[in-house]
């Protein structure tokens, strides 16, 4: 075949080599990838069966938990650790709560009483990566009417008749006893104190607590909803706490947004969400709220109040008593407006 005039043979050869090289690379990629394919996508367990015992938990030594063993107790098993990929193996349907709150790692250890095999407890140390995350999972699971504990170094802490629950920096800790027992109580509290005393944490504080008016606040009632607060997807980083007013418990909430525009937009979206869910707007009876364009709604017989001021979005949630709810909202508005002006 004679050459074609006008053709650049060198260029054509270079392009051909380049295309062949790309095809070769693609082939190589497919070849490598086939050894690492995620068969779970197709509903296939590569073991071709159910989980083996070894698969249940990645067991590794965690000297820090071993060292917490209280006097009179033995380890019941080796320390287990779980990560984001296998947390469900330990707590199943509760895993999403942690995973959606910044979960990093869980370490667990069971201890059993040397004299009574029925007395055992399990220590759960959730590394939530940040103080706020740890407080959030602590607060949303907090049992009502419990006994508050306090010991050096710990964050908020309480006990029930069979367990101790607290935060320490970025850690959320649960100690769960097999039964109600003073022997277990003492051992669990000792471990809690030891953990808080020995585990170094960053000096990170949650500043939003101080934004709430102090009068009539129910101590220990703070909650932090990192997402989907009150069923509304757009409500993130919402702090809530309860007040005792006129013999009624009323929930106030607030969130610091990036800027006043975002706060206003979030308030409007929440208002619209309530309206879409059959809430009915009603005029405020409190003149301060009226003057500041605060929204008051009837939501299935309860009162919802929502407003924004400066970078804050805030309000009152599901109050039985509208007058008391408006009084609380007015105090919250006054405090947040003052802070916003000072910043």
């Amino acid at each position, binding site marked *: *075949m*004679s050459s*074609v*005039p*006008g053709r650049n043979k060198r260029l054509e050869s270079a392009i051909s080599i380049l295309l062949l090289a790309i095809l070769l690379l693609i082939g190589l990629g497919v070849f490598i990838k086939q050894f690492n394919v995620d*068969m*779970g*996508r*197709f*509903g*296939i*367990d*590569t*073991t*071709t*069966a*159910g*989980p*083996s*015992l070894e698969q*249940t*938990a990645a067991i590794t030594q965690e000297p820090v938990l071993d060292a917490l063993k209280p006097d009179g107790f033995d380890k019941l*098993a080796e320390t287990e650790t779980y990560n984001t990929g296998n947390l*469900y*193996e*330990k*707590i*199943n*349907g*509760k*895993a*999403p*709560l942690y995973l959606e709150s910044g979960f990093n790692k869980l370490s667990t250890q069971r201890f059993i009483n040397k004299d009574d095999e029925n007395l*055992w407890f*399990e220590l759960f140390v959730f590394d939530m990566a940040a103080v706020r995350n740890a407080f959030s999972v602590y607060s949303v*699971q907090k*049992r*009502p*009417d*419990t006994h508050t504990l306090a010991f050096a170094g710990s964050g908020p802490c309480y006990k*029930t*008749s*069979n*367990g101790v*629950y607290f935060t320490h920096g970025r850690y959320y800790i*649960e100690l*769960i*006893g*097999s*039964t*109600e027992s003073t022997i277990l109580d003492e051992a669990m509290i000792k471990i809690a104190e030891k953990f808080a005393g020995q585990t170094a944490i960053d000096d990170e504080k949650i500043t939003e607590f101080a934004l709430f008016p102090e009068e009539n606040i129910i101590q220990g009632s703070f909650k932090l909803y990192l997402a989907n607060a009150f069923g509304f997807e757009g409500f993130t980083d919402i702090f809530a706490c309860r007040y005792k007013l006129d013999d009624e418990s009323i929930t106030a909430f607030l969130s610091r947004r990036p800027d006043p525009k975002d706060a206003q937009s979030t308030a409007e979206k929440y208002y619209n969400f309530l309206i879409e869910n059959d809430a009915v707007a009603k005029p405020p009876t409190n003149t301060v709220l009226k003057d500041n364009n605060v929204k008051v709604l009837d939501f299935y017989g309860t009162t919802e109040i929502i407003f924004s001021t400066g970078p804050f979005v805030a309000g009152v949630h599901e109050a039985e008593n509208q007058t008391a709810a408006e009084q609380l909202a007015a105090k919250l508005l006054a405090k947040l407006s003052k802070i916003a002006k000072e910043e």
Partner: protein
Amino acid sequence: MTEQNDNNFDRRQLLNRAGKAGISIAAAGLISYRLYDKNGPEIGVDAESLVTLPDFRVPAKAGQTISIVKGPDRKATVNKAIELLGGIERFVKPDETVAIKPNVAFASSPMLGATAHPALVAEVVRLCYEAGAKQVIVTDNPINDPSSCFTLSGIGKTADQAGARVILPKENLFRHTTLENGKLIRNWPVFFGPFENVDRLIGISPVKDHARAGASMAMKNWYGLLGGRRNVFHQDINTIIAELSMMVKPTLVILDGTEVMMTNGPTGGSVSDLKRADTLIASTNMVAADSYGCSLLNLKISDLPYLSKAQDAGAGTTDYESLEPIFETL
């Protein structure tokens, strides 16, 4: 070759070559489309190897489908609940082998209500033997380490003492199944071995709050039969529970609402998560059992979408009142 040696293509040649190129591309695309397998590979399991759980149901008896017994003592309430449905002899015949599937999902103390109560499991084992059962098997495929779950929940010991054979999950007990018309259970490993050669199947589960599903009761109990990376189903929890109600056709379900886990489910962790409801439900219709059971959690039937999905799939009815439930207080 003279045409190719020309410096310029004419229109005819251009159209001719473009047409050929287009046909080549279309043919390659068509072949790829025909060869594309959207279900992905089915490793090592051909259609002939798939298994189906047997149908363990007994014939229906009008007016004896669901019983609801109030009382604090599980042994007494389960005896009465089964008696009201016609007695254990209706469900277990002499020389039959019975599998009991309690909820043993977690390695936690029975006091916390995260697992079936060991005393209740033991009593059902005893009743089966009393009816003449040849063998009673107690088994589950827990989320936590199976050995720890059966030990710490107390179920392993009490079932053993009652004469049951306790079977823990092993790899060779899993087989793949595909649920007919199922969306999620397709070529999926299930804990099949213990149920392969048994005559009857009884489910025993506590009534629990469940962070993902809203509630964990009789139907959710069958989640324990799933092998593999079953956590992927949490993304579509209502569908998987409904499909489980189609996949498993038990003889009887026993739903224990003596102490109900109202909050922090499904693991709980504190006795303060529990509330006494002193209620035990026995039923041959697990959708009906769960539909009544949700009221113990202060939930409406509409709060649990899997109930209506299961009903639509033909697994039972949410209208438990239509079944004329038998109420009794001890």
